[in-house]
């Protein structure tokens, strides 16, 4: 062999080396945790940090106000009436019963001559995390001190968060808390709040504060919570209500939250499979995403129409469509945040489904579910208010979100896995909130009834 032969061989191969490209192989399968974490990462879902400790005096004031019926015109409804600690901070009913009703929670009944509120009472669990929107029709939105409502309510300047803004609204609502002109309270006295006009929110708030500051214990509590404040106004009460909710209702230590904190063992295999479905085949995450797994958007999910209906086209409830003259928003309602969803039955704005299994089966084939909806799932006293006529069904389906136009094709096993995943969103500490209920409130009104 002459040196020239190996020299040429080496030079040739070296030149070839420069042109070589790597071998491409197919994407490998991954472990279920790798798949699930990749799926989660694609939807902006991150752990929730610790809620900072709140001002104890403000928490104490907010707690008293939350359970005190003095805020309602007829002194018969507290925030806690429709946001019951035994019902996941909702009321467990298809449609909420506001002022004039009797009983609590799921046993609450409509009072004579009263009307159900428009929709079900949403759970307040984790309402203080920093949501950008509130209410089923998103009529309140904003963040960092700028809030918008529809119809417009002139909020005082400087409200610190959306939960404070929200807390200022139920006392204005005649069905929920304020009452109707001519109402008398539980002591037979005239309801002075109900006499004020619907365009006088500031006057209503002032009237509520007059009631509160007539109770010496409340004066002391306001002074302790907001020292140095010359005049206590209703926004102080609203701030205290928000602070209490942030302190007491923030429950973010679910198995799923621990999984987000890199604990692979926090979810069992069935829940992980359900998670993959949630972020994949079932497309849940296309709406229920972000840090709260929802809470930010609107969708017409084909929920059955139940109730007295809105102002625009009664007895239909157009949802966001009540506020916008855009067909796109007809029958569109808030995408609910899903932490602790297991505890907030019944589901949807109309409380149309009692179980998560029923909800998932609805999503599995929305058109069929709506067309064949069984109103026996509703509370007996609202079944007559179910609007299942073909015209209504067609109207709802006409603007159905495109994601539900075709069945998902989930099997019974997959539905079970999805439900298992949804239950993994429950913080065990949120199952029993009874310790939050005070023995009494400063007004002396009944807490338990």
């Amino acid at each position, binding site marked *: 062999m002459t040196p020239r032969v190996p020299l040429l061989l080496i030079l040739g191969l070296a030149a070839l080396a420069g042109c070589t490209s790597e071998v491409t192989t197919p994407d490998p399968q*991954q472990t279920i945790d790798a798949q699930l974490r990749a799926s*989660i990462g694609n939807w902006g879902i991150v752990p929730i940090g610790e809620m900072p400790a709140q001002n104890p005096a403000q928490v104490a004031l907010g707690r008293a106000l939350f359970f005190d019926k003095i805020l309602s015109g007829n002194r018969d409804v507290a925030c806690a009436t429709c946001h019951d600690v035994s019902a996941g901070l909702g009321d467990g009913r298809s449609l909420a019963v506001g002022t004039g009703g009797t009983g609590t929670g799921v046993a609450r009944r409509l009072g004579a001559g009263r009307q159900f509120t428009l929709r079900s009472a949403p759970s307040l669990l984790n309402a203080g995390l*920093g949501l950008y929107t509130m209410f089923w029709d998103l009529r309140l939105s904003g963040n960092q001190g700028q809030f918008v409502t529809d119809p417009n309510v002139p909020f005082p300047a400087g409200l610190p968060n959306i939960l404070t803004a929200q807390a200022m609204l139920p006392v204005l609502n005649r069905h929920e808390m304020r009452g109707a002109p001519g109402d008398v309270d539980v002591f037979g006295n005239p309801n002075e709040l109900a006499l004020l006009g619907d365009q006088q929110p500031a006057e209503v708030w002032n009237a509520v504060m007059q009631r509160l500051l007539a109770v010496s214990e409340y004066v002391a509590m306001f002074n302790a919570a907001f020292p140095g404040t010359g005049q206590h106004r209703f926004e102080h009460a609203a701030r205290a209500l928000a602070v209490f909710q942030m302190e007491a209702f923030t429950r973010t230590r679910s198995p799923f939250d621990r999984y987000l904190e890199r604990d692979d063992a926090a979810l069992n295999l069935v829940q992980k499979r359900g998670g993959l479905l949630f972020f994949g085949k079932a497309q849940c995450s296309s709406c229920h995403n972000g840090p709260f797994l929802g809470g930010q958007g609107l969708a017409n999910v084909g929920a059955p129409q139940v109730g007295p209906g809105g102002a625009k086209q009664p007895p239909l409830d157009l949802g966001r469509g009540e506020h916008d003259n855009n067909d796109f928003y007809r029958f569109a309602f808030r995408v609910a945040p899903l932490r602790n969803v297991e505890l907030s039955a019944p589901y949807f704005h109309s409380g149309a489904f009692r179980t998560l299994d029923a909800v998932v089966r609805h999503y599995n084939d929305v058109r069929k579910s709506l067309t064949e909806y069984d109103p026996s799932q509703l509370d007996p006293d609202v079944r007559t208010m179910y609007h299942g006529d073909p015209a209504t069904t067609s109207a709802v389906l006409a603007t159905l979100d495109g994601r539900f136009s075709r069945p998902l094709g989930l099997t019974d096993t997959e539905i079970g896995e999805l439900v298992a995943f949804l239950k993994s969103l429950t913080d065990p500490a949120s199952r029993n909130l009874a310790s939050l209920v005070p023995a009494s409130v400063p007004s002396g009104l009944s807490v338990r009834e």
Partner: protein
Amino acid sequence: MRIRALPLGTFLLAAWAGPVAAQLISIRTVPISQSHQFDLFPSIRMGMGGVSLAVTDSLHDPFSNPAKGVRLGASRFFGSPGVYSVSQGAGAGRTLPVGTWVRSGNWFGGASVALQEMDLSDANPFQPFPPSCPQCDVAQILQVQGVQLPSADRSHNNAFGYAMLGMAVPRKGLSFGASVLWSGLHGVDGVDLLYPRSARLTQKGHDVDLRLGALKEWGSGRSLSAVLVHNRFSSAHDVFYFDSFWDPGAQQFSQRPRLEENLDQTNTWGAHLEYSLPLRAPGWRVGWVATTNLMSHPKIPNYEIQAIPRDPGNSEAFNLGVGISKSERSSIFALDLLYEPIWSYTWADAAAPLETAHGTTIPAGGKTIENRFRFSNALLRMGLNQDLEFDQATKGLGFQLGLAVHRIDYSLVQNDNVQATTRRQHEDWVEWTPTWGLSLRFPTWEVRYRGSVTHGTGRPGVRSGGDEVFAGDAVPTTILVAPSGPLTLTGVKVMTHQVSVSFPFR
């Protein structure tokens, strides 16, 4: 260079292959080449593609087998400064080894020290916050949280110390030797790339390599050598990440630091045999080699980039090779061919009892994932040396060209004992390393230059949501809390240059 991404979907099994790797078989499951960092010591054959089975390398052989120190001529000093760089800004390093070989009667020995400064990838900038939190001030948050990050200095120093002592028994053509190499490591090339999206990485480790060697040479030119190797590698990786979270107090996205402490440990016992002899045809020589490595991996790091969980493991690695060379007047051509079968078994332990798909329970400490790798690697090296002599052979000029081709091919069978599933995966790639060299020989000293460029290795990244997110790319708009998808690879070139000078001192 065209950048292309290819899915790999596997991880680096970081079997250590340090500065004297000839008898240590490197196991790699991602094509990150690290050998260039540890090409410390001088060699007269590296420019020939690293051929070694049928040719001798009097400068480098004693590092591999201390008994071969007997082939050293006069006592001499050497220095072999070298640099390497990885394209795409994926790393670089500078090394200065100095040492001496001493021969006195039947005894011989050597010592060397080397200092190395290596740069981590400059394409892995820490992006403190995703776009969802543009107003976040990382310095302020760190101050509030009382966190002190390690220095952001990309350069890290490694130090190496080597000592060898041997004895010849000329009457029987035998020689024996023992050597120890200690490496203090604060930076191993490529490791930072396996922790994409980390804010900081500190490495601190060491390697101890002990060798006993024997060499038998017959007058006919035949030789048989054997080496026993024990290598203990341990390195700690402290990896800081910033995890996104929703801050309910500030009611906005924020980030918080997380420290992950990883250990990378591999212990190796190895045996190596070489036999070579001249053929009848003039100038021809043939050599054989057989190596076995038994490795235990008490702890394998949890690389952010890997998608296959595992914790400890063990490996059995072998190589069988044959080489041939042809010397003719002042030219040498040599060719080596090696086959490397390797079996590796790694697993992941359950931190807590886990329910399986069959309804049974894996107890804490039980195996949740079992990975069985089967490698069939091959290595081809070939090289040419041409010397030109002047002044009655007192001076010389030499040229070298060479090529090393390393094919890594493995299959993985992974049993997921939780899901009760089995999957199979196959990966292969080829690394091409053209080499070249130049030597100048004078009556009392010589200077050598060698260079190489390796193609086929790469810079890994992670695929996320259809986007290629490379280790060095900006943090994507999505917020990632964990490894997000199959690995990807961008091809890089590794360029190495080394100049060695040696001269006798008596």
